[in-house]
């Protein structure tokens, strides 16, 4: 190799770089926002360009939970179980107005935002959000992953 004999970086930075470009996501889709998710995931907008193209349909293999659509109180325990089954490190995106805040539903049935049940990293509002907004949200999440303190197996817990 010429001109590129060695590369120096912080281990945290390298790990963050690896993690942000290999997001395996689990789509938890309950409503019409799913259409926008499909649009984002398929070739037209292509979520794969940002390294999040590999959808896993098991939460145990995923590290990004996409909550897409209205979550009812009946579904609350299911969402919590899915989140708890995911391995660390894990992130959550609330996709669409319903997942962010309950949206137009404020009644006996709907949870007023999934952050009442599980922690959320990125909120993407909109009813439904455009695929561009979803990609923007994904980029924001990648930024967050890059900047956060990385957790790894032999890291000393403070």
């Amino acid at each position: 190799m010429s001109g590129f004999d060695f590369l120096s970086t912080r281990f945290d930075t390298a790990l963050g770089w690896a993690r942000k470009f290999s997001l395996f996501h689990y789509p938890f889709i309950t409503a019409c926002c799913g259409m926008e998710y499909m649009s984002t995931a398929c070739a037209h907008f292509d979520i794969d360009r940002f390294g999040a193209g590999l959808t896993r349909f098991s939460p145990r293999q995923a590290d990004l939970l996409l909550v897409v659509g209205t979550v009812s109180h009946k579904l609350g325990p299911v969402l919590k179980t899915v989140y708890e089954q995911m391995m660390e490190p894990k992130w959550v995106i609330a996709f669409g107005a319903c997942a962010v805040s309950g949206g137009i539903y404020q009644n006996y049935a709907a949870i007023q935002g999934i952050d009442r049940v599980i922690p959320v990293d990125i909120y993407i509002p909109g009813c439904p959000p455009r695929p561009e907004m979803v990609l923007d949200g994904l980029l924001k999440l990648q930024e967050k992953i890059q900047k956060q303190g990385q957790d790894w197996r032999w890291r000393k817990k403070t």
Partner: protein
Amino acid sequence: MEKEDLIDEIRKRFSADVESALETLGDQTLVVRKEGLVRLMSGLRDGPFDYAILLDLTCVDFLASENRFEMVYHVFSLNRNRRLRIKVSLPGEYPVVDSLTGLWKNANWLEREVFDMFGIGFMGHPDLKRILMYEGFEGHPLRKSYPWRKEQPLVPQKD
């Protein structure tokens, strides 16, 4: 049979059960006494009227009025391409009406939904329990007396 003749024929045959008939925007409606509901419905399903399909059944809550709840049934005749609406007024806080599960199988789940949402009892229903709301849910959410925005979460909610 023309529309009006049909209604007249039904009224003649079930004069004891039908209270009144009215037409709204081309839709025929019969107001029926609670006691004669099953008799009338089975008469409509079989025989010359031929209303073979129960399209839907639901309930309306008129909180302030004397007869608080009103059951609404929609039946449809495939052969004649004709619809009919049947209404039954129910007095009291927790009324009971005869089940139609003996006539139409699909009445089973529809009546369970009305029981879940309005708390109407159905006499003769084989499995009357909640269908949409979860176990432990208190009250009937589509009643006008159910507090709006009252939630009964299953997992503890953070603010």
